[in-house]
């Protein structure tokens, strides 16, 4: 790697211990309704919706998933649709949940990973079935036909994108 001789960094830029590091991008608190999180009926999972609404959700407005050159839907300059994805049972804990946003990623699995939701995976091509996840509500579109066995209420995040807002429940 070529070294930059006119290095403009000062020593102080690397002193992370003394001061809070500047975040790479600012997260803004979003009113929940904006991302139609209201539409995610959480009742089916005995979800305390009052507590849910009072909580502040930090959903990055920008490119959380780092868009690549081949986005999943080409809309001739139109903004890509954003879908809210509520994930239950993360970390194998029945009560734990996260809400992430799907917009730019190539598939749902990439999007979840980019936003720190761990889903087991193996082939990433839809034939091994490691990423099987329960779809509680919403609809997905498959980019390639999944080959692994999935039950009627399950999806393979490695080869699909959301068509609507989603509610997922990870395997225990």
């Amino acid at each position: 790697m070529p070294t930059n001789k006119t290095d403009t960094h000062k020593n102080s830029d690397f002193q992370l211990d003394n001061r809070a590091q500047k975040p790479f991008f600012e997260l803004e608190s979003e009113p929940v309704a904006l991302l139609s999180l209201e539409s995610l009926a959480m009742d089916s999972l005995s979800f305390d919706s009052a507590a849910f609404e009072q909580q502040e959700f930090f959903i990055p407005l920008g490119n959380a998933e780092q868009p690549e050159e081949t986005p999943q839907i080409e809309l001739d300059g139109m903004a890509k649709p954003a879908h809210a994805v509520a994930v239950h049972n993360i970390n194998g804990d029945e009560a734990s949940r996260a809400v992430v946003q799907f917009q730019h990623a190539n598939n749902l699995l990439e999007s979840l990973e980019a936003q720190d939701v761990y889903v087991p995976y193996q082939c990433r091509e839809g034939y091994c079935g490691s990423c099987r996840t329960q779809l509680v509500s919403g609809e997905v579109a498959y980019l390639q036909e999944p080959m692994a066995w999935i039950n009627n209420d399950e999806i393979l995040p490695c080869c699909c994108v959301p068509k609507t807002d989603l509610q997922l429940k990870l395997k225990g």
Partner: protein
Amino acid sequence: MTYQTFNRNEFNALEQPMFFGENVNVSRYDVQKYGIFEQLIEKQLSFFWRPEEVDLSNDRSDFSNLPEHEKHIFVSNLKYQTLLDSVQGRSPNVALLPIVSLPELETWIETWSFSETIHSRSYTHIIRNIVPNPGEIFDDIMHNEHIIARAESVTRYYDDLIEGVNNYNNFGVGTHSINGQEVVVDLRELKKKLYLTVASVNILEAIRFYVSFACSFAFAERAKMEGNAKVIKLIARDEALHLTSTQHMMQIFAQGKDDPEMAEIAQECEQEVIQMFTDAAQQEKDWADYLFKEGSMIGLNKEILCQYVEYITNQRMQAVNLPAPFTVKSNPLPWMDAWLVSDNVQVAPQESEISSYLVGAIDAEVDTEEFGEFSL
């Protein structure tokens, strides 16, 4: 019910069950009852690779520099893998082909078995490259009591089904006296043997193999025996397909649309299959005990491998709609996922040794301007 290599009966192949219907006559794929098996064949063919493509020259020096207890882990693991693929390279053909009734499934079984023979050849390739006398390792497979104990549990259901199918083909349904012994051939009993065999193959491909993969990749995580890990990666990619196929078979059986009797049998056998899974998990843990008897290696020891056995058993049982028996929630070997990704199996030759090429990737887009200089 003698087996016919080309069944003269006329019948609609779409109305046949997967097994124990008419013997297949025309290998036709224009219409298919279960398209998934055709897709699996296509995928398996696109994965084709040869062991010799992987360069193992660095593994020889890596291996000779390993401490003795790690050599024991590596070689024992390799022996176990050799055993598993020796079984898988022939048993699906011998056991399932005489009773299969769908052309696409018949071809899938042949394609599946064939790919296992490539795995067997790759173990010889590995062993040849790391030790001066490969014979010692292969000979020990038949003498090592721990390996032989594994063979027994792996082949029991196969042998049981093969014996039953032989009697069925020779004598048909009924009570027969064979060599002075009374043998009852009952089709429902045979179907039960078939169901248990498919379950045991699923366990073999989905749990036993993955435990051995974990050991192979644990070496490569420390940048040791990397050529070997490259071979295992190609094998793991194939095994993911095979386990998908056995999961499909089990689910198709359980749904009962294919053969209503099979759905009853699947229900009947549920407890037995759960027991088979947990037994296999226990056998894998005992094996871990043998592997690490002389000491553990950096990154992997008996406890972690046992946790992985429990984790993978949970995963595989859930995949066939069985309850998960163990409490372990998260993957104790998170780096396994990355080793098992199929899309980074393909590497540019300048980045490392050539390990696999997708043959036949052609750019089919031709612009009309390309013909600008043509004249007739």
